[in-house]
């Protein structure tokens, strides 16, 4: 009977993988369209030059912030209990940054010149700093994920690869330190990318880097918790002790509250001390169509409610609350990145090409089918690799088996799908 259930579960996994191939296929086709036809296939315009891809890029990077935070907690502050979840976080982080790079690759008009940022330096530019940091940090993430991949049985035949992986693993603390430095730089400078734009009243604020890093830490931790819970539930295994998940959830909730507090004073002080255009753009954010996503998703559900659920879940020992709280935090940060990007262009510049010198009308932008297809395709691709990683990587086979082993002496864990009895390097 249990063999039957196992076989169904195994088949369900492959149905899931096959299902993911559909949006990936459509996304690939749409991506080729973008690369060959140019950005004319998007709904972007001179008035709204950035859109869905930038939102996905910013969201991916924010949700990947769990990698550096948990690595720092586990390896720099020596919190051993965070090691299992840090291992999941670096994998999510690596995928998140890959997704962000894919989005940027599509978004730049000349993808054949993607390497220009590394060759033609412009240290004055926030975006140059972001380019360098992201490239360096994804290398760090690759090195952090590499020892996990090297445990795959296929690498048994390559002892040198494993030896190198072992050496890399022994220096995890170094990678964690570098990763934290780079992340603290570019998670903030992504906010700075917007914050330095003096011409756009909604964006131009020195607090932007701080708001971005705080929301990213909260969302990154919450997202890691959420993915761990999902994998544990779907795969019927325990990857991270419950207590650790609740702890990480609480940290996320507290950081989220700190972020909301900073956000409140940023907006309030900006409105009291009149910055030209600031109050108007804040009003635009808080009323009308933006009002729903701002109050509903960003502040109430994805902010206050999410923080309360995350903090309270530990007291109530409620996995449901933890799952809901982390999900809402994720939704909140995505809504924030969307609102921030869209608001930048909602107020037309006083001298834009359209005759809107005195009438502040919203710039209309809604992503085109091609933009949606590529964005969904990228997310599906990341989900696919994540699913496969959780399926095959020995490090993610669970620390304890929920089903009691038939023979306690059997080194092979139950209910795992890869033949491995090896002790993970990282444990």
């Amino acid at each position: 009977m249990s063999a039957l259930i196992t076989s169904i579960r195994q088949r369900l996994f492959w149905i899931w993988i096959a299902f993911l191939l559909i949006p990936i296929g459509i996304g690939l086709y749409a991506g080729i369209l973008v690369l060959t036809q140019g950005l004319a296939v998007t709904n972007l315009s001179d008035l709204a030059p950035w859109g869905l891809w930038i939102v996905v890029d910013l969201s991916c990077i924010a949700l990947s912030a769990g990698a550096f935070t948990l690595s720092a907690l586990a390896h720099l502050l020596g919190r051993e209990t965070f090691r299992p979840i840090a291992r999941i976080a670096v994998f999510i982080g690596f995928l998140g940054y890959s997704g962000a790079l894919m989005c940027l690759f599509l978004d730049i008009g000349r993808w054949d010149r993607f390497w220009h940022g590394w060759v033609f330096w412009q240290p004055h530019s926030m975006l140059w700093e972001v380019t360098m940091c992201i490239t360096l940090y994804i290398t760090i993430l690759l090195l952090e994920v590499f020892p996990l991949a090297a445990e795959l049985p296929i690498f048994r035949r390559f002892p040198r690869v494993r030896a190198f992986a072992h050496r890399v693993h022994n220096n995890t603390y170094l990678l964690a330190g570098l990763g934290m430095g780079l992340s603290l730089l570019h998670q903030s400078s992504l906010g700075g990318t917007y914050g330095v734009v003096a011409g756009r009243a909604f964006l131009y604020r020195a607090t932007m880097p701080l708001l971005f890093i705080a929301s990213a830490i909260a969302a990154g931790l919450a997202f890691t918790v959420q993915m761990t819970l999902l994998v544990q539930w779907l795969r019927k295994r325990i990857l991270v002790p419950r207590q650790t998940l609740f702890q990480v959830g609480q940290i996320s909730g507290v950081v989220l509250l700190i972020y909301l507090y900073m956000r409140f004073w940023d907006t309030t002080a900006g409105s009291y001390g009149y910055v030209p255009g600031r109050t108007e753009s804040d009003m635009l954010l808080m009323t009308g169509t933006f009002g729903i996503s701002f109050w509903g998703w960003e502040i109430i559900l994805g902010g206050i409610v999410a923080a309360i659920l995350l903090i309270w879940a530990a007291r109530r020992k409620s996995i449901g609350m933890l799952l809901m709280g982390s999900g809402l935090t994720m939704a909140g940060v995505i809504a924030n990145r969307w609102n921030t990007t869209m608001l930048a262009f909602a107020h037309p510049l006083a001298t834009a090409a359209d005759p809107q010198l005195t009438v502040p009308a919203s710039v209309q932008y809604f992503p085109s089918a091609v933009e949606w297809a590529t964005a969904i395709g990228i997310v599906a691709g990341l989900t696919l690799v994540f699913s496969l990683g959780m399926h095959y990587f020995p490090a993610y086979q669970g620390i304890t088996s929920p089903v009691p082993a038939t023979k306690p002496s059997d080194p092979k864990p139950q209910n795992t799908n890869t033949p491995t009895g090896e002790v993970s390097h990282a444990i």
Partner: protein
Amino acid sequence: MDAPRAMASESDVKGPYWAMVIDLKACIGCSRCVYACQATNDTADGHLWNVLIEDKDHFGVPVFLTRPCMHCENAPCVEVCPVHATYHRDDGLVTMDYDRCIGCRYCMVACPYGARVFNWKENTDPNPKEGTWGSPEIPRRARGVVEKCTFCSQRLDKASERGLVPGIDREATPACCNICPTSARVFGDLRDPNSPASLALKGRQSIVLRANLGTKPRVFYLLPN
């Protein structure tokens, strides 16, 4: 000395200080400067480097404002470009290296004047304004790069070797200034007290757009009254 010329004299830029002066009282909104720019710089309709904005004042009297690139001394677009594709020339004008631009459009986000346009698609159509309004003097830009007004720098560059004075000799003056039927747009060196730009500023009240941003534009607007 009026404020624009004082600014020019204090600037770090060596040599002439190029500036454009647009008289809002004299402008009749005929769009000729827009057409001449399109013909000379080979831009399609809806892809304008120089635009005409129409509005009305408080008494319902039409006001026409044409807007080229401001060629700011503190140009936000230059600061934000991640690959140094947008830069200040030695003479202070803001121009682009189209072979270096990666098309990230950060400069469009940063420009406070909306003066930049992106090549969303390859422009293969015939120039709609060629012939009547002038002929293209620079190659078309490829798909996927941002582009902008250059103050017709191709003309300025040839001025010294041909012994011409920009602002006075038509071959060395931006196309938009040459074509203006009411001489509402003039060009010249603000460090030369007798240049057309300096003379136009004399005794008139001038403004720059969005002065509070501190971008120090090189385009000055003379107020109607």
